């Protein structure tokens, strides 16, 4: 494949206007670089299925990251009660941790709901409602996260 062919570019250019009957005029413009970003450069055009994919990925990574941290923190149990209680209660006393836990809940809830949606997609069930079920997952996630704030922040202030 000759190197001088261009690949995909999003070009925003100074434009030539060719009115009916006039001759074409020529103007130069710059082109964007190719690269990984180019796919995500089009994020405004993503459809429901694409967003679901992006969010599922993100939440999956957060969860596995959390699992490693979680086991590390719980490992204090090996050192005995005062260490364990001290660490957990020390963490829970931090307001930032409380907020992060709400975030974690939201992440987990979305991953679960969209995960169930994906399981249905895998079974070939309800494919026509795949976009609606994604929006429903989002809305439910939001609602559950908001509703849990009192419980999660309880006693933190």
């Amino acid at each position, binding site marked *: 494949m000759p190197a001088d062919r261009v690949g995909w570019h999003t070009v925003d250019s100074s434009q030539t206007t060719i009115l009916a009957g006039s001759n074409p005029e020529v103007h130069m413009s710059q082109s964007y670089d190719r690269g990984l970003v180019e796919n995500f450069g089009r994020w405004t055009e993503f459809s429901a299925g694409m967003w679901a994919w992006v969010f599922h990925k993100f939440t*999956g990574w957060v969860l596995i990251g959390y699992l490693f941290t979680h*086991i590390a923190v719980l490992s204090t*149990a090996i050192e005995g009660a005062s260490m*364990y209680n001290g660490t957990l209660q020390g963490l*829970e006393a931090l307001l930032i941790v409380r907020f992060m*836990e709400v975030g974690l809940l939201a992440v987990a809830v979305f991953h*679960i709901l969209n995960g169930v949606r994906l399981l249905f997609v895998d079974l070939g069930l309800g494919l026509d409602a795949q976009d609606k079920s994604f929006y429903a997952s989002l809305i439910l996630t939001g609602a559950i996260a908001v509703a849990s704030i009192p419980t*999660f922040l309880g006693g933190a202030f």
Partner: protein
Amino acid sequence: MAEHYTSFSRDDTRWLLQRVTAVFLVGVLAFHFMLLHFVHHAYEITLAGTTARMSQPGYFITMVSFLIAGTFHGVNGVYNALVNQGIEGTPRTIVKYGLIIVSLLLIAQGIRVAWAMTGGQLI
């Protein structure tokens, strides 16, 4: 051809296990959150409480299964994502065995912790 299909590393096996663990995780993860945020508040957790739960065999087995299923599901998910990004050849082999080792370590540590949490009183 049959022997070809018994290999455990086939892509379809990992695909299926990813879904099977997902089904299991739906239940336990929801249960875990309910239990440790709504039934018991997270800020009230003490080792005594943890021990009381963990020394019940059913709970212990559930948590260890949770640990194993979650680790497989999460790490396999990460591996799939990297394969989708087009990782190949040596880097891929390194990543693959790296992830396997990390998972085994996590599971081992998790079980050690879970055992310590029982306070040696698993009935």
